[in-house]
C-alpha cells in the first residue's frame, strides 16, 4: 500500500475499571477494502471498533491513536466524533432492534437518518430512502415505507439496518456480526448484499465475525485476534492456505468441513484466557505446542508488512511470496 490509509489505528488500548481488555491494536484500513476481524468470543473484536468510534460507555478508558483521513478520533471532542459517525463511518450491529425504533414507522426513521447525514430534504430525502431500500433489496418498497419494524422479517430488518447505515454514504461500514442471528439461506443473501454494496459504492467494509466462512466470502483481508491483540493479518487466500500463527492454524483445523469426513476434529487444548488476567508473555503460550521460555516471558510483537504475525516461532510465509519478494 503506497497511499496513506483511510484509517490508521495505532496502539489502541481499552480498559474497563482495572481490567484491560484490548492490549494495543495496530491496523490500517485502505479505501474500499474489506477487512474481516475474527477471533473467539471475548477477544475484543467489538470493543476495538466501539472504542475507535468513541461509542464505549464512560467507564471505559481508551488510549492510543485512531486517525481517520488524518483526523484524530481517539478521545476526540464529541462534535468531531458526531461529525464522523454515521456520515463517514457507519456501524451496524448483530441485533436489528438496537437500531430501529419499534414504535415508529420504518420509512420516516430512514428519512430522518438521511436528513441528519446529508443535505437532502423533503421529497428528495424520501426518494433517497426509496433508493436505499431498493439498494438493500426490500421488495415492494413503496408499500412497505409505512410499516413498523416488527412487520419485517429478521433478514429484512437486517437489510433496513444496512440501509440506515448507508444513509450518510459512509466511507467505512463497520458490520459487527451482522448475520449471526440469521438462518443460513438468509445469511447467504445478506453476505451477498454486503459484497455487492461494497463493489457498487466503493466503501470500505470492516466485517466482524467468528465465522471464518462468512468472512472469506466478503473480505479481502483478515485480522485474527486473540485475547485483546491482533496476532495475524494477511490476505484471506494467504491466511487460509498458509496460516502462520499457531492459533490461526488451530482455529482453521477445528472447523469441520462440509466436504470432510467423520474423523475426530483437531482441537486446540485448553481455553481462551481471561483478557484481563493475561500471562506476562504470549497469551497463547499455555495452549501452544511451539511455546518455549521466550514465549512465557516476552510478548511477541506483530511483525511484517501487509501480512504480519505476532509469534516468536511463526511458520515461514508462503515460499512463493518470499521468492517473489527476493526476485
Amino acid at each position, binding site marked *: 500500500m503506497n497511499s496513506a490509509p483511510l484509517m490508521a489505528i495505532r496502539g489502541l488500548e481499552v480498559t474497563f475499571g482495572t481490567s484491560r481488555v484490548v492490549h494495543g491494536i495496530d491496523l490500517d484500513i485502505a479505501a474500499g477494502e474489506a477487512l474481516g476481524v475474527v477471533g*473467539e*468470543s471475548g477477544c475484543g473484536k467489538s470493543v476495538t471498533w466501539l472504542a475507535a468510534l468513541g461509542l464505549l460507555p464512560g467507564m471505559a478508558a481508551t488510549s492510543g491513536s485512531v486517525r481517520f483521513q488524518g483526523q484524530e478520533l481517539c478521545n476526540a471532542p464529541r462534535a468531531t466524533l458526531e461529525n464522523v459517525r454515521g456520515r463517514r463511518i457507519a456501524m451496524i450491529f448483530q441485533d436489528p432492534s438496537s437500531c430501529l425504533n419499534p414504535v415508529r414507522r420504518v420509512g420516516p426513521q430512514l428519512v430522518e437518518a438521511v436528513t441528519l447525514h446529508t443535505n437532502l430534504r423533503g421529497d428528495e430525502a424520501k426518494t433517497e430512502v426509496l433508493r436505499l431500500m431498493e439498494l438493500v433489496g426490500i421488495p415492494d418498497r413503496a408499500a412497505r415505507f409505512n410499516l413498523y419494524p416488527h412487520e419485517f*422479517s*429478521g*433478514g*429484512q430488518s437486517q437489510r433496513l439496518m444496512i440501509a440506515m447505515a448507508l444513509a450518510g454514504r459512509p466511507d467505512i461500514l463497520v458490520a459487527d456480526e451482522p448475520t449471526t442471528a440469521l*438462518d*443460513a*439461506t*438468509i*445469511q*447467504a*443473501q445478506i*453476505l*451477498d448484499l454486503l*459484497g455487492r454494496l461494497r463493489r457498487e459504492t466503493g466503501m470500505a467494509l470492516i466485517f466482524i465475525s*467468528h*465465522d*471464518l*466462512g*462468512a*468472512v*472469506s*466470502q*466478503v473480505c479481502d483481508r483478515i485480522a485474527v485476534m486473540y485475547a485483546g491483540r491482533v496476532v495475524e493479518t494477511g490476505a*484471506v*487466500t494467504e491466511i*487460509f*492456505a498458509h496460516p502462520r500463527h499457531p492459533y490461526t492454524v*488451530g*482455529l*482453521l483445523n*477445528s*472447523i*469441520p*468441513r*462440509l*466436504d*470432510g*469426513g*467423520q474423523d*475426530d*476434529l*483437531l*482441537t*486446540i487444548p485448553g*481455553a*481462551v484466557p481471561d483478557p484481563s488476567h493475561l500471562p506476562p508473555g504470549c497469551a497463547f503460550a499455555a495452549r501452544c505446542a511451539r511455546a518455549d521460555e521466550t514465549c512465557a516471558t516476552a510478548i511477541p510483537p506483530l511483525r511484517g508488512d501487509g501480512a504480519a504475525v505476532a509469534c516468536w516461532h511463526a511458520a515461514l510465509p508462503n515460499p512463493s511470496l518470499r521468492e517473489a519478494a527476493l526476485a
Partner: protein
Amino acid sequence: MSPIIEANNVSRTYAGHGGLFRPKSYVRAVEDVSLSVEQGETLAVIGESGSGKSTLGQVLLGLAPASAGDVRFRDAALSPAGSRQWREQRAEMQLIYQDPLAALDPRLTIAEQIREPLDIHQIGTPEERAQRVDEVARDVGLQPVHLSRRPHELSGGQRQRAVIARAMASKPVLLVCDEPVSALDVSIQAQVINTFRRLQRMSGVAMVFISHDLKVVRNIAHRVAVMYLGRIVEEAPADVIFANPQHPYTKALVSSVPIPGKPLGDRVILQGEPPNPAARPSGCAFHPRCPVAVAQCRTSVPELHSNAEHRRVACHLVAEVRGAAA
C-alpha cells in the same frame, strides 16, 4: 434390529394467540413426521428457525404430546408425560440444550449436578453413584479437580461437558441434543463434538442431533433429516445428502454454507423470505421460494418417497425424475 426410538406420522399443533378481532390461528409446528433411530446411530435434524426441530425433539421425549401419530421407545408406546412408566422411560432418554450455563445450577458443584439424575431416579447405592460420577466425568474429559467446582469456575467447553456427563450418568440409550454446540466457540466446539463421538462409540447411545450448523452435522451424523415448516423434506445418509442433495431446499441449504477460504463464487442464493409457520403456503410449503416449482407444487403436498441410497425426498419434481428413470 429394532430401533431405539420411532415416530410414526407425528404432528404437533400449537394454538396461536389470535387477536381481539382475529380468529385463533394454529401453528402446525410438526406435521406428519416419521423417523427412527437405531442403537449407536446419530440422526441429525436440520432446517431453518421455526421449522419444528425443537418441537420434534420434545415430542420424541414425551415432553410435548403429539397431537397425532405415535412415538415408540424400545418397542413400547411412549407413556403419557408425568406417569410412573414415563419417568422410567425418561431415565433412559436424556435431553441436552444449547446453553450449558442455563442447564446447570450455579449453587451446586459439578459432581453434585452429575449425580442428580442418579438420585432422582434412585439408581444404585450412594457408593455406586459416587463411582459413576467419577467414571462419567472421566469419559467426557473432565478432570477430577473440576468436580468440586461450580459452573462459573469452568470454561464454556468444560461446562457443556459437565452437562453431557450429567445426561450420560444414568446410562441413557437415547440422547436428544438440541443445538448442543451452537453457543460454543469453534475451538471449544471441536472438543465437545469429539466428546459426543467418543461417548457414542463407548456406550452405543442413539442420538438425535438438532443443529443448524451443516458443517458440524456433516462431521457427527450418520443420517440427516431436513425439515421445512414442520415436515421432513429429505432424509439420507450424511455422506450422500451433502454430496448430492436432491430436494431444492436441501440444495439451497447446502449451497448457502460459506466455505472458509472460498469467495462467494457462483453458489445458488435462495431468494425470498424465510417461511412463516403461521401462514403455511398451500401445496408444497417451499414452493414460493423454489426455483423450479411448477403448478402442481402450489396445490398438492408432495409425499416423502423413498428412493435408492436409503434416501427419502418429498418433491414432485424429484419424484418425477425417479418415475421417469424407473
